[in-house]
């Protein structure tokens, strides 16, 4: 005996009720539960759908889906970072590397020879920070509206629209620069490193905040073969 479409829908609801938020993971678990239930029906055709489902869910152990959810998140984070670095590699290859080198040199020159450069950088940083706040807010709203409309949340998509990594790097860098007084150092090695790190962080942020959301659809199709089938 095979499961009906309504029962499959019930399984999706079951995973959602057990805190599996994302459609990619829901789909995999639904198929697993469905296979398990059908196997149970082979041996005992009189078993009710609910009893079969409960028995199958017990196989997942006392923690249910929680371990799977947690590890799924870390696997997707890894993929997300890999995607960012894939785009970043473009900037250390010709032709874009010319621009990268120019940016580093200009910034180095600016830090070394322009007085009050630390103030300019500080203010620029603050402006950047505000820009990020507004952008993140906007992207997040866009994602929530879309997720509500389609009823499906994809983990990778959520990460792309949360632009979380961009934020993280910006905040951390600020702390480091503030505590180590790198901007007022006279040592040219420190100044060179500062210029390089600033360019690196700007690139990282630019890619995670601007490039990835623009290419979200394409990246999702690449990561999830089921995306096409479910849209």
């Amino acid at each position, binding site marked *: 005996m*095979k*499961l*009906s*479409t309504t029962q*499959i829908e019930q399984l999706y609801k079951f995973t959602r009720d057990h805190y599996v938020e994302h459609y990619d993971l829901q*789909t*995999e*678990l*639904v*198929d*697993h539960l*469905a*296979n*398990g239930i059908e196997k149970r029906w082979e041996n005992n055709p009189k078993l009710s759908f609910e009893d079969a489902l409960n028995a199958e869910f017990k*196989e*997942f*152990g006392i*923690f249910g889906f929680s*371990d*799977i959810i947690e*590890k*799924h998140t870390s*696997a*997707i984070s*890894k*993929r997300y970072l*890999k995607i960012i670095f894939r785009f970043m590699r473009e900037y250390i290859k010709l032709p874009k590397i010319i621009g990268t080198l120019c940016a580093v040199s200009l910034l180095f020159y600016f830090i070394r020879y322009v007085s009050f450069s630390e103030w300019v950088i500080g203010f620029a940083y603050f402006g950047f920070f505000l820009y990020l706040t507004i952008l993140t807010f906007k992207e997040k709203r866009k994602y929530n509206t879309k997720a509500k409309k389609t009823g499906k949340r994809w983990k990778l998509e959520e990460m792309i629209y949360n632009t979380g990594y961009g934020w993280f790097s910006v905040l951390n860098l600020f702390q480091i620069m503030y505590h180590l007084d790198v901007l007022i150092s006279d040592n040219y090695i420190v100044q060179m490193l500062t210029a390089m790190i600033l360019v690196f962080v700007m690139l990282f942020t630019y890619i995670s905040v601007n490039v990835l959301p623009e290419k979200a659809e394409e990246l999702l199709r690449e990561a*999830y*073969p*089921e995306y096409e*089938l*479910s849209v």
Partner: protein
Amino acid sequence: MGNSKLYKGSLHTIILKLLEENGKMYGYEITQKVKEITNGELNITEGALYPALHKLEAEDLLDVEVAKVDNRLRKYYKLTEKGSKETVNKLKELENYIRNMQVLVNPNWSIE
């Protein structure tokens, strides 16, 4: 996972080896196959299998394919080129481990 913690470290190798032999497989199929091969001795739990599959996928060792089967979507896993190479390494590693353990536990034992 399974009957013993000893199996846990070999889960990735087990998955890679199964995929090498069977081409593409889905999660439930893997648990059943392991049960069948070991006559029910080894039971891979879902809580261990899926995280392992997702990790191998994130490391580009596995590729996924989705097909509509009956009235639901099924996710299949298969080895990538990198995954095939890693399978060879992992199996060699496991063989060495077994050999060393045999010698340690039973010094008179010989592989010949």
